[in-house]
């Protein structure tokens, strides 16, 4: 079934650890996005990609990095997690042409102790 998957759903980790949040979609979409959302706040775009080997930083500065080696896979990495990175991370994808209809994953709730 065509969908967008994020793992893990929840992650609790200590300061200084390297983490990778996984995002995969089987919808054949070229565009993929990472949003960060704190409780009660808006979604902030932190990274996006329009295709393989294409990655751009979003509006909100983030210490995370992303890669897009395969169309369906868009992982986000934090080399050294800090408590300030505690947040919800949402992955989304959209078809080429228009950004309007985003398909979101279930999100990863990251807590850094």
């Amino acid at each position, binding site marked *: 079934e065509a969908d967008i998957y994020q793992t893990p759903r929840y992650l609790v980790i200590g300061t200084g650890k390297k983490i990778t949040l996984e995002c995969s979609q089987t919808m054949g979409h070229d565009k993929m996005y990472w*949003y960060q959302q704190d409780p009660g706040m*808006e*979604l902030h775009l932190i990274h996006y990609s329009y295709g393989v080997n294409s990655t751009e930083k*979003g509006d909100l500065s983030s210490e995370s990095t992303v890669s897009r080696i395969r169309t369906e896979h868009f992982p986000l990495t934090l080399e050294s997690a800090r408590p300030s990175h505690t947040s919800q991370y949402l992955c989304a994808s959209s078809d080429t042409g228009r950004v*309007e209809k985003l398909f979101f994953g*279930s999100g990863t709730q990251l807590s850094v102790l």
Partner: protein
Amino acid sequence: AQRVTQPEKLLSVFKGAPVELKCNYSYSGSPELFWYVQYSRQRLQLLLRHISRESIKGFTADLNKGETSFHLKKPFAQEEDSAMYYCALSGHQGGSEKLVFGKGTKLTVNP
């Protein structure tokens, strides 16, 4: 710069009452506006878009360029409408098209 403002963080109405979720935007170009919704334990999903002029689940939204608003309305709220609602704007920045979200309004429809 693109900006979306949802002035109400929380909105509570009774079942059967009309509901209006406010959204104002700031954008120098020709905007495209959307409403996204997140029901409890579900993913964020597109509810409706202004260019479609559609009614989804009884909700409508009209783009008012003069007032730079895109309020979401429903004449008779139902309990299943309880959710987080996000207004979003699509515009071009630096040669790329992006979707900017408001902070969201949590709607509670009481029985």
